[in-house]
């Protein structure tokens, strides 16, 4: 059988491919491009990705050859500087097998770079990297390059086809032995591939002309809206059972997690016993205590590559491992404690939206654990999150879980897909309370702050406070509260609920501080101007009026409360208290900014409530959205005028 098979392959290889890849012309011509591109620094005249599969008889393995062929016109200095040099290759499993580069000058002259002119260096995986420096490139010239990398075939992949520069012709070609059947799907407006075939080869092609450059807009997720094509090996020959399904994925996870040796199980039992967790504890308490212990005892180091770090006994002895090892430790410990859970994978929602129809395993690279009793999640490899906090990059994402099912003595795995719920603005909020008084001598403002953060609003704050060394603490206070000119203006400070473990009970982390805020005061003749707007810290503004292309994206739904109490000094009055009032509201509670004031005796009390209820809004809502964002930015400019009575 084998011999016949290999003969067939040889026969296949001698046939010309059905689709001719854009060839590396012997005499390339300088291109003419249309007027609309003349203002661009760089234009990609051609961006072609090819993937061809070949059976390696010697290694008995299917290999893939990924080719990239690009022609770029460089129309100004920025363009030339951007493409003058590049590094090609240097992956872990990929080897560069062909590389060609040349300059095509505007007068038609072509300067080829010979292979010996391409400097190489070896990377940590002993693969060559090519350092290409195009010769004699001037404004207006074009550069052309082609390279092909060989690596073991991976049944799924993705090619990004949209960037920050426009592409005139974008192409993707996948060619494979005819018995393999692929899904080739385009996203965000990129066309899916069409199939053409003969007896030996299947060729999947898709082309798009004039791919616009994509820009990062304020409050947008450009990455997930960029045009791209994903492919996946779905069937072989006439076999109707689909390959690489979600169930296949979780079966692999099953093999990774549930085939531990006796030695490993013993080590886990010993470790869990040593944690002295009472069997009477409610499940959620058990989970929290276990997570605290593991994340403290075992250091995550993803640079580790030795296979020993997969073994639970070795991990527990060395107290360090990579992400896969951490997942194993968590699941083994949970089993030892008798806690019901499901192990799974999810994707970072800012990088990839899981498509249930096209099972692209590559993107599901975040380990996650689901607890059916509480319906909550845990991230075993996230150093700064503690159950049940999992953070905005997985909330709203789909996750694939391994459900263990038994039939008699036999246990196996089935896949379950869940959508991880998005937290609400009830859980994610920040609250700033400021009490301002003025010194008798020179009216210097003194502000007493109480600033707390909860849920996802605490991300960044909690970690930096928990991991701060003593000498950095004042710097953190200064960066959170924004009104101190120098650290010595911070007269006192303390942190509340400082540890990472407080994520678990969603106890708000906070800072309480008293700061001399001289820079908030200005003078105008005999009047004092107090920049109350600066008390809330600088706000994002969207004053520039640009046509919106992408939908509006918020990291997580959240609420911002601010309460500012001004103690009006004796003998003075505030002449313009109404200047703080603002009311901008949209939809049925979608987003809004409301601020108001009241005067009680010698106190002016300003209350502000700003909120964003969803994580995405249609681009048609950009105008009301800008109004709300800018309402906060406008508040930054509000000044109270104090006048002697």
């Amino acid at each position, binding site marked *: 059988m084998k011999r016949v098979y290999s003969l067939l392959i040889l026969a296949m290889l001698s046939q010309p491919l059905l689709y001719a890849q854009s060839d590396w012309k012997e005499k390339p011509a300088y291109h003419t491009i249309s007027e609309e591109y003349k*203002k*661009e620094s760089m234009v990609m005249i051609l961006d072609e990705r090819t993937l061809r599969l070949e059976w390696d008889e010697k290694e008995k393995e299917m290999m893939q050859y990924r080719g990239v062929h690009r022609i770029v016109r460089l129309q*100004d*200095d*920025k363009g*030339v*500087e951007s493409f003058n*040099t590049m590094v090609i290759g240097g992956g872990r499993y990929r080897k560069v097998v062909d590389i060609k580069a040349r300059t095509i000058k505007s007068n038609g002259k072509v300067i080829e770079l010979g292979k010996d002119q391409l*400097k190489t*260096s*070896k*990377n*940590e995986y002993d693969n060559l*990297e090519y*350092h290409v*420096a195009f*010769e*004699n*490139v*001037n404004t207006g010239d074009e550069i052309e390059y082609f390279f092909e990398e060989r690596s073991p075939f991976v049944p799924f992949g993705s090619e990004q086809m949209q960037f920050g520069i426009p592409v005139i012709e974008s192409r993707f070609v996948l060619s494979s032995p005819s018995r393999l059947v692929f899904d080739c799907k385009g996203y965000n407006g990129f066309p899916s591939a069409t199939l053409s075939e003969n007896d030996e080869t299947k060729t999947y092609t898709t082309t798009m002309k004039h791919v616009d450059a994509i820009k990062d807009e304020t409050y947008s997720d450009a990455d997930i809206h960029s045009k791209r094509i994903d492919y996946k090996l779905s069937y072989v020959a006439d076999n109707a059972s689909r390959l690489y399904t979600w169930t296949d994925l979780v079966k692999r996870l099953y093999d990774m997690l549930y085939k531990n040796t006796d030695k490993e199980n013993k080590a886990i039992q010993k470790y869990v016993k040593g944690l002295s967790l009472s069997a009477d504890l409610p499940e959620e308490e058990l989970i929290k205590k276990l997570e605290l212990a593991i994340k*403290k*005892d075992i*250091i995550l*180091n993803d*640079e*580790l*590559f*030795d296979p*020993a770090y997969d073994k639970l006994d070795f991990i527990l002895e*060395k*107290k*360090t491992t990579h992400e896969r090892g951490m997942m194993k430790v968590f699941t083994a410990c949970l089993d030892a404690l008798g806690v019901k859970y499901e192990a799974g994978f999810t994707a970072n929602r800012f990088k990839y939206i899981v498509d249930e129809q096209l099972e692209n395993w590559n993107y599901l690279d975040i380990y996650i654990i689901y607890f059916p009793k509480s319906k909550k999640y845990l991230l075993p490899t996230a*150093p700064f999150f503690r159950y049940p906090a999992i953070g905005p990059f997985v909330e709203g994402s789909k996750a694939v879980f391994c459900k263990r099912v038994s039939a008699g003595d036999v246990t196996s795995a089935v896949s379950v897909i869940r959508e991880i719920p998005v937290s609400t603005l009830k859980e994610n909020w920040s609250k700033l309370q400021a009490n301002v008084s003025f010194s008798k001598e020179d009216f210097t403002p003194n502000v007493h702050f109480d600033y707390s953060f909860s849920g996802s609003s605490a991300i960044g704050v909690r970690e930096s406070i*928990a*991991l701060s*060394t*003593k*000498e950095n603490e004042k710097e953190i206070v200064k960066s959170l509260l924004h009104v101190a*000119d*120098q*650290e*010595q203006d911070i007269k006192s400070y303390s942190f509340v609920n400082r540890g990472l473990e407080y994520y678990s009970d969603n106890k708000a982390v906070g800072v309480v501080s008293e700061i001399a805020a001289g*820079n908030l*005061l*200005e*003078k*105008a*003749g*005999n*009047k004092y*101007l107090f920049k109350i707007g600066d008390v809330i810290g600088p706000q994002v*503004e969207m*004053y520039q009026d640009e046509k919106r292309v992408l939908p509006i994206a918020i990291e997580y739904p959240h609420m911002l409360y601010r309460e500012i109490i001004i103690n009006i000094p004796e003998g003075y009055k505030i*002449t*313009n208290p109404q200047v703080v009032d603002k009311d901008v509201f949209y939809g049925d509670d979608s987003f809004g900014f409301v601020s108001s004031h009241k005067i009680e005796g010698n106190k002016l009390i300003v209350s502000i409530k700003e909120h964003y209820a969803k994580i995405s809004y249609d681009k048609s809502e950009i105008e009301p959205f800008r109004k709300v964002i800018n309402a906060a930015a*406008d508040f*930054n*400019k509000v000044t109270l*005028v104090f*006048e002697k009575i």
Partner: protein
Amino acid sequence: MVTSVVLLSLGNRCGAQSLDELQQQYSDEYGVYTKYYQHLDFYFDKNELKVKLDVENEKVLLDPAFATAFSTESVHHSYFSTLNYLEAATLIPTDKGFKPVKSVNTKVKSSRDDYVFYDDSKETEVSYNNLQKGNRTSIKYGLTFRDVYMTPKVLLQSYLPIVHMKLEISLPKGLSLNEYLMGLDTSIYKRTEVETRNGKLITWEARNVPKLKFYSDAPRVSNYINQLALTVDQYKNPKNGASTYYMGKPGLLAKYLSGYIKDINRQPDAGLTAKVHELTANENSEADKARVIFKWVQDNVRYVAFEDSLGGFVPREAALVYSRKFGDCKDMSSLLKAMCEAAGLQTSFVWIGTRKLPYAVSKTPMPGAFNHMIAAVKINGKWVFLDATDNTIPFGAIPYSIQGKEAFLVNQAGDYEIVKMPVAGADNAILKDSSVVKIENGVLSGQAYLDIKGYRAWSLNAILKYKSEADIEKTFQHYTRRGNNKYDQTAFQYKFDNNDQRAVHITTTFTLKDYIRSLDNQYFVNLHLNKLLQDGKVESDKRKVPISLDYNQSLNYVVSLVIPEGYVVSHLPENINQHFEHIGSMVVTYIQEKDKVQMNCSLKLEALEIKADQFEQYNKMITTLQKAYKESVAITKK
């Protein structure tokens, strides 16, 4: 042979501190080096002088929350140094001493300097196990240096405090060294010397070395880290006993460096010579010839850095650089030199250390004093320096990164000259920003005219090379925005003078909503639309590391407010005129003339470096500025 230092520190028995003691002493730190030992060994191998370095470092984790910071460590090496051995382990304290747990994960990676496109520097990275509080990581490695000239500068300080720092240097009989101790505070290091059987042992030692601190506005670390730079002064050749002088004097260094340039550009290149004649056809004076050549290289040859074994020191042939149209600093120097010579000018290669390095060749004559190469031409009997790696500076100007540094001119015969680079005065980088504003319906609107000259203008030119036309208005926002974030620019124009000065001129028209404060029949207008250095105070009580500034400069902001019809000026802030020693000066004046009020704020900054003992003056200047920025002009309805 090298004496290896004791492998396992045996807890309290050796008088080493216990974990509790260390935690108390270093309560604010997450870790310390308990040992930072280096041994430099100069020796003869087959009558050839060689040098090797053996290192033993040990760190202890004091705060387990920072364990990830300890999980990997790297050793750097390249063509010039070979890594002979590397052992890494975690040491776990037991009753009988420390138990080593070997590190199993080691990998060699390419080490990349961001500014160098290609080089063969490598780093070997190790990962540690068992990072628990109280455990120590231990690393031992040995490097052999290919060339005694490449003796490294030995660092005596690190990013963690060091409990015990020791540098030992073994010298054979008859070998003497030049030792240059440098750094922010070197008083803690003690030097001793003993005779040994084979020669001499020098020891530099210190306890409780404070850790290095990093600041975004500090000079490069090399400028203040405690270090010992070394060169071999003389040695006795073991074969015949003759004394050889190696380094230690500029003349010896020049002889050494001349070896790198003696074989290049031997033959003139026909194509290059033709190009030079074409460029200089209409130029008569030496200066004009050099000027057109310099501009041509700046405009047509791109800077691409390749550091490749000896390629890192030998300039490439000018003909090759000319055909490729790219090269690094020494390639560009080679091209400039060949082209100027073809035009009949006297030229020289120039080695120089930029301000990234603290060395002056007259004080520390060694190859490591330099990290850059430029060219020089003699015009009317004086050297004019040409650095084409900066394609924005006019002929005759030097990049600000080499101001005040010593240039080392060396010819193929090994003759040399040291020329100190000038430091440009504050008038060499000028920003003049004049605006005329008026009030209309509570909105401040006006026009601004900016004139930017000197280093500031040339830096702008450099930034703009990376921007397309569409982005330029946005790029200049750093200069044009003012007042508050409701600044709205309704017109924008810019121009670069195409002469040698390359000044930049910008004109804008703008409005500022919500900027003026109004109350009843009064307006308060803060004429400081630009509040430079408002947040510039330095944390003077903790910081010892100086502030580094790129160049001296003059900044002048003039704002004229047209007084609206029916209004008078009811309050003008006070004028200020103050000088701050070692820092500069500031002047703020308010003048009323007929229907206008003009505020003139001038700032002169005249220091490339502000040292710790000058911080007080600096903060005084900032405080004075902040006070001035708080003042508004008041105008009242008649």
